[in-house]
C-alpha cells in the first residue's frame, strides 16, 4: 500500500525539531488516514537519535545519518530524500515553506518528476485527487489546485495546528543507508552563526507594537516607541523595516525573524503577508491599523481599523497620557 503513504520531511536545527514538523505531521495524519496509508517521517541529520522520541505522531521514522547532514545542507538533503523515497515510496511528500523547505520542495519535484503545489494552507483527498488551497499574493488570494497521483506539497508554516502532530514517544525507526552522493556534494556547509543577543527579547514581552512599511520613515519610529512605552511593551517590526536597517534583526517578527505570542499585538501599517503572520498568529489580542481594507492582516486580527496610523497613534498617545 506504499502508494497511499505520506512522507513528512522533519525540520530541525541542531537536532531540535522545528514546530512546523508537528504541523506537517498533523496534516499528514489526516491525509494518510483518508488514503488508508501510513504516515512516515524522514529524519535527516547526524546523531539524531534523540529527536525520534518526539515523533510519535508518525507510524515510522525513516532516518538517514551522515556527517554531511550535520548542518542544513540542501544538496545532501535532496539526495538523501530521493534515496528514502526510492526505498519507501510515498504518494504525498510534505515539506514546508520555511527557509529549509524552500530548498527541498522544488528540487524533489524535479528529481522525482512529480508536480509541486506550494504555499498550501490545507489539503484534502477527494477520491483520487489531492486538493490543496494555496495562499498567494501576500495572502490576498487563495488558489485551489488539484493533482492526481504522486505529488510534493509545500505547506505554509503556521497554517496548521502543531498540537495535532505532537505526540511523544518514538515510533519504529528504520535506518536508510546514506547514498554515495553524500560523499561528493559540490556545496560545502561551513558553519552556523547564531544571532547576537538583542537589547530587548521580544519573545518575552507582554505587549508588542509592531511597525510595518506603513510607518514610512525611520523618523517615525520614536512615535511607535513612545506608544510601546506607554503600553508597557516593546517595538517590533516586519522584515522590510529590518532590511532598511531601521531596527535590528532581533526585533523582526516572522518566518525569518522570531515567533512571538504576546498578550497584545498592535500592528501598525503591516499588510499581513503569510511570512509575517506565521510569527505572530498566536498573540492573545491582535489589533491592526491599516488604511487598506483588503489587507490580509484583517483576516487574522481580532480588531481592526482602516484609519491612518498617523492619526490613530497620536490619538492613542493622547488617551494614555
Amino acid at each position: 500500500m506504499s502508494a497511499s503513504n505520506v512522507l513528512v520531511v522533519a525540520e530541525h536545527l541542531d537536532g531540535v525539531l522545528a514546530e512546523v514538523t508537528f504541523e506537517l505531521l498533523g496534516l499528514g495524519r489526516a491525509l494518510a488516514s483518508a488514503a488508508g496509508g501510513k504516515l512516515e517521517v524522514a529524519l535527516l541529520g547526524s546523531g539524531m537519535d534523540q529527536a525520534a522520541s518526539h515523533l510519535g505522531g508518525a507510524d515510522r521514522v525513516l532516518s538517514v545519518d551522515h556527517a554531511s547532514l550535520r548542518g542544513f545542507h540542501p544538496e545532501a538533503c535532496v539526495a538523501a530524500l530521493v534515496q528514502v523515497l526510492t526505498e519507501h515510496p510515498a504518494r504525498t511528500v510534505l515539506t514546508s515553506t520555511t527557509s529549509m523547505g524552500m530548498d527541498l520542495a522544488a528540487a524533489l519535484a524535479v528529481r522525482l518528476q512529480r508536480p509541486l503545489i506550494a504555499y498550501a494552507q490545507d489539503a484534502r483527498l477527494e477520491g483520487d485527487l489531492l486538493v490543496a488551497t494555496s495562499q498567494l499574493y501576500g495572502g490576498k488570494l487563495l488558489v485551489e489546485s488539484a493533482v492526481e497521483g504522486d505529488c510534493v506539497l509545500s505547506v505554509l508554516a503556521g497554517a496548521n495546528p502543531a498540537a495535532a502532530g505532537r505526540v511523544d514517544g518514538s515510533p519504529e525507526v528504520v535506518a536508510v543507508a546514506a547514498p554515495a552522493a553524500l560523499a561528493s556534494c559540490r556545496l560545502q556547509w561551513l558553519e552556523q552563526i547564531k544571532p547576537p543577543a538583542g537589547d530587548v527579547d521580544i519573545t518575552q514581552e507582554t505587549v508588542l507594537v509592531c511597525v510595518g512599511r506603513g510607518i514610512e520613515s525611520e523618523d517615525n519610529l520614536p512615535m511607535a516607541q513612545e506608544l510601546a512605552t506607554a503600553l508597557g511593551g516593546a517595538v517590533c517590526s516586519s522584515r522590510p523595516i529590518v532590511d532598511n536597517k531601521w531596527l535590528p534583526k532581533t526585533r523582526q517578527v516572522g518566518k525569518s525573524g522570531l515567533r512571538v505570542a504576546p498578550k497584545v499585538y498592535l500592528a501598525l501599517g503591516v499588510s499581513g503577508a503569510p511570512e509575517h503572520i506565521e510569527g505572530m498568529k498566536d498573540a492573545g489580542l491582535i489589533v491592526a491599523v491599516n488604511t487598506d481594507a483588503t489587507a490580509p492582516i484583517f483576516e487574522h486580527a481580532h480588531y481592526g481599523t482602516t484609519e491612518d496610523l498617523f492619526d490613530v497613534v497620536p490619538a492613542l498617545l493622547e488617551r494614555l497620557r
Partner: protein
Amino acid sequence: MNIAVPIKLVPDLVEELELNDDGSDLDHDALTYKINEFCDHALEEALQLKEAHGGSVTVLALDRDEADKALFTALAKGADRAIKVTGIDENTGTLTAAHAFRAALAGVEFDVLLTGVQAPDDREGQLGVLLASLLEIPHVSAVSEVSFDGGTVTLHKEFAGGVLARYQVAPKVVLGIQSARQAPRYAPVSRVRQLMKEASLDEIEVESPTNTSPEVRRVFRPTAGRGAEMLAGTTEDVAARIAELVLAHRGAR
C-alpha cells in the same frame, strides 16, 4: 564571474486584484505589473558583485508588455546585457518558465545565477530551485552576503530566528537572494528613456514547453478567516476603544 539574473513582473499588490469571469485566474489585462521586489535585490547584489570583482551581469525576462521597460531599467542600473525570452506564454507556471529559462541559458555564459528568493504569485515553488535542479547544479535559497573569492562563492543562508549558516561552492550555482547588501539602487528615468531609444534588447526564442502546472480549480478571496471586528466612529472613538482593549488584555502589571 559572470552573473545571470532572471527578473519577473508581478501584479502590483497595491491595486485591487481583479479576477476573470470564470474565477479561474486573475484578470491579467486589468492589472498593473511591476518588478518583483526580490528581483530588485538579486539585481542589486549582482551589480555589487560585478563592481567588486569584475565580470558581467546579464538580465533575462519573459516577453510581456512591461518586460522591455524592466530590462532597460536593469541596463540603466549597470547590467551589461538584457535578454527577452520569447515564444512562451507570459503568464505561464513556474516550472514551465524554468524549462524556458534552461533553454534560453544555453546561449548565455554564466557562473552564478541570482534569482529573487520568491514571488507572490508562485504556486509551484521557486524558479531558482527548479532551474538548478533541471540544470543539475547546486542551489541555496534565502541567501544574503554573497562574496567571491578566487573561483569560489561564499554565502549566508538565513533561517528562522536570525540564525545563519555559511556555505561555500564552486560555480555553477543558483542562489535565491533574500536581501542585497544595500537597498536596491534607482535608475534615473532619463537614462532609461535614453537607453530605450539607443540600446536594443537581445532576444532568444525558445520552444514553448508543455504546460505541466497542477490544475487550477478556482481562485478566490479569503473570507473564511475569523475576520477582524472593524472599529467604528471617529479617530478618537477608535483610539479610545483600542486603548480599552489593549489595557484589558494586557492584564495587571
